[in-house]
C-alpha cells in the first residue's frame, strides 16, 4: 500500500482518537477525583450532541453551540453530583456505578420520550465544510477542526488543572481529600466542580462528533465502553494518559481495520485486558 494511503489511514485514526481523548479526559477526571466509574458518561456525550444540534437549529451559530453544549452539561453535571452521586460517596464503588448506570438509562429513555427515537439533524457548518489538500490526500476540513478543537481542549484542561487555584484544589483533592479539607477547602464544591467538568467534556465530545456521526439517542453506548478502554490504557486520573492512549488506540484501530479487519473491534478489548493484567495503572496512572 502506498505511503499516501498509509498516511491517510494514520490521520484518520488520529481524528477518531481525538474524540476519544476529549471524552476520556472527562471520564478520567471524574474517576481521579471522585473515584467513580461514570456509567452515564455516554449518555452525557449524547446529550451534548443533542443540545449542540438544537442550539445550531435555533441560533444558526455553530460556535455558540460549541459553547452552549459543554456549559449546560457542566451545570447538569453539578446537579447530578449534588443530587445523586454525592450522596453515595460513603457507600463505595458499587453504588456509584449502579447510580450512574441508572442515570444513563433515565437520560437515554428520557431523550426518546422528549424528542422521539430519531435524532435531530446536525450538519457540518458551512465555514467548515469541504476539503483541504494535505499534500498526500484531500481531507475533510471539519475533521481537521475536530483535531484542533481537541488540542485546544487539552491545553485548556491542562491550564485549568495546573495554573488555576480551582485546578490546584482539584488535584489536591484527588491526592488527599482529607488533608485538602483540613486545609480549609470546601471539598464538596471541588467534587461538584470536577464532576461538572468531566460531564462538560463528555458533552463537548458529543457536540463535536455530532456532525460526523449523526445524532441519535443510542449514540453514547458504544463510546462509553470505548472510553473505558482508553482510560484504562492511559491510566485512571491521568490527563497525559488519556491523550496518549486516546490517540494511540485510535491509530491502532485504524490500522487494524486496514490490515486485519476481523480483529478491529476485538483489538480494543484485548489491549484493555492486557493492560489490566500487566500494568493495571495504565501507561501514566498513579494508582
Amino acid at each position: 500500500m502506498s505511503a499516501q494511503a498509509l498516511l491517510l489511514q494514520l490521520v484518520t485514526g488520529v481524528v477518531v482518537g481525538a474524540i476519544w481523548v476529549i471524552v476520556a479526559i472527562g471520564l478520567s477526571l471524574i474517576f481521579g477525583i471522585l473515584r467513580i466509574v461514570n456509567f452515564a458518561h455516554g449518555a452525557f456525550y449524547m446529550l451534548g450532541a443533542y443540545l449542540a444540534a438544537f442550539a445550531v437549529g435555533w441560533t444558526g451559530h455553530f460556535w455558540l453551540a460549541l459553547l452552549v453544549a459543554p456549559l449546560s452539561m457542566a451545570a447538569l453535571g453539578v446537579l447530578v453530583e449534588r443530587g445523586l452521586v454525592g450522596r453515595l460517596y460513603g457507600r463505595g464503588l458499587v453504588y456509584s456505578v449502579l447510580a450512574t448506570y441508572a442515570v444513563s438509562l433515565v437520560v437515554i429513555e428520557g431523550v426518546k420520550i422528549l424528542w422521539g427515537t430519531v435524532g435531530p439533524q446536525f450538519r457540518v457548518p458551512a465555514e467548515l465544510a469541504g476539503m483541504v489538500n494535505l499534500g498526500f490526500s484531500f481531507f475533510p476540513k471539519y475533521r481537521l477542526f475536530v483535531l484542533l478543537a481537541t488540542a485546544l481542549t487539552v491545553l485548556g484542561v491542562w491550564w485549568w488543572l495546573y495554573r488555576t487555584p480551582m485546578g490546584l484544589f482539584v488535584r489536591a483533592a484527588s491526592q488527599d481529600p482529607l488533608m485538602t479539607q483540613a486545609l480549609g477547602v470546601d471539598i464538596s464544591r471541588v467534587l461538584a466542580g470536577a464532576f461538572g467538568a468531566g460531564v462538560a467534556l463528555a458533552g463537548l465530545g458529543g457536540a463535536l462528533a455530532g456532525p460526523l456521526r449523526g445524532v441519535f439517542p443510542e449514540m453514547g453506548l458504544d463510546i462509553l465502553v470505548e472510553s473505558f478502554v482508553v482510560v484504562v490504557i492511559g491510566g485512571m486520573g491521568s490527563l497525559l494518559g488519556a491523550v496518549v492512549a486516546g490517540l494511540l488506540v485510535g491509530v491502532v484501530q485504524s490500522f487494524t481495520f486496514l490490515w486485519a479487519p476481523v480483529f478491529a473491534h476485538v483489538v480494543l478489548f484485548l489491549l484493555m485486558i492486557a493492560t489490566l493484567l500487566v500494568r493495571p495503572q495504565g501507561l501514566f496512572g498513579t494508582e
Partner: protein
Amino acid sequence: MRITRREFLREVVAGGAALAIPGTLRSIAHAAPRESIRIGFPAPLTGAFADEANYMVQGATLAVEEFNRAGGVLGRPVELLVRDDRLSPDEGARRALELIERERVHFLAGVLSAAVQLAVNEVAKRHRRIFVSTSQSDKIVMPPDFSPWTFHEALTPWMTSTALARYVLREGRGKRVYILYADYAYGQEHTAAWRRVIGEVGATLVGVDPHPLGTTDYSAYLPKIVAARPDVLVLNNFGRDIVNSAKQAVELGLKQRTQIAVPIIPTAAALEAGPEVLGDVVCASSYWWEIQERIPKAKEFNTKFSRRFNRVPSDYAAYAYSGVRELLEAVQRTGTTDSDRVAKAMEGRRYAHYKDTQYWRACDHQSVQTIFLLRGRERPRGPYGLFDIVATVDGERVIPSCEALGHR
C-alpha cells in the same frame, strides 16, 4: 431465626397479592374485543431505522383503516398491534411470542430488519401463523427458513442488486468495483448478488469490506477505498448507515471519479442525506412516488397516504400497505382466519395496490414485482423530488428459479 406459622401465612398472602397485581392491571389495560381480527406488527421503532419504521406503521395503519371504514373484514373490526422490536432479533422473537400467546394475533406482518424478520418468522412458523414480511431477505424464501405460512412482500437482495448491478456495469462508467457492506444478512446478500453479476459481465472486484451494522464513523474504511481507485463504489447497507457512509465517502472526494451505488435508499435516509450527498448516486427501489405520473394506482395511493399522514409514502410504507391489504383480502375471500386456507388463497394471486401488477409466486411466496432504478438529482424538484427514474426492470427477469432456491 424462627419463622412462625403466622408470619409464614402472612408472607404467602402478601406474595400472592403481589403476584395478582400485574395480572389485574393488565386485564384493565387491555380492553380489545376478542372477536376482532388481529395482526401483529413488529417494527424497529427504536434504533437506526426508526424513521422508516414509522413509515411502515403508517402504511399498515392506512390499510387497516380502509378495511374498518368499509365495515371490517367478515364483519369484524381489524386491529393492528404494533410492537417495537428494537432492531434486535432477540426482542423480535420475544415480541412475536407475546403477540401470539398473549394477544392471540391471527397473523403477523411487518418487520424491517433482515435479522429480525428471520427470528420473527421462526416464532410464527412454530405457531402456524402467517407472516407477511416486508423486509429484504434472500433466506426467508428459501428452505430452511421458508414455511407454507411465510410470505414475502418485499424484494429480495438477489432481485434488487441483480437489477442494479447489471444496470451500473453495463452503463459504461467502468468495471472496477469496490463493495463496502454491513455485516449482517442484508449486506451479505446484496454483496453476493453483486459478486455474481460481476462474474457474469466480466467486471473486476477490487475490494470487499464488511462493517458492523450501525457503524457511525467510516473514516477507517475509506482511505483504503480511495487508494484502490474504483470506478464503482457499492454501499450495501441501510438507513442511517447509508447516510453516514455516503456522506463520509463524498467528504473524501470519492464521488469525483467513482459511481456510488446503494441497493435501496429509504426515503427517510434520502431526506437526511440530501442532494449534495445523493446527487448522481444510483439505487433501486420497489417504489418511488413519482411513478404516479405513469401509473394511476400510484397516484391513488399517494393521495390517500398524504391526505392521512401529511407526507408522501416511502417504499416501505407501500410494502406494509400492500402486504396487509393482501392478507385481509385473502381472509375476506376465504371467509376464515385459518392460516392454511388463507395462505392457499394468497398463492399465485395477482394484485396491484400501489403500482403495477405483482403476484405471489407459488413455490416460495415471493411477490414478483417491478423494480425501479433511480438516480439522485443534483438539483431536486421540490422537497421530495430527489430522484430520476432511469430504468424499469421486470421482476420476472431477475428472480432466481424455484430450483435454484432449493424448492422442488
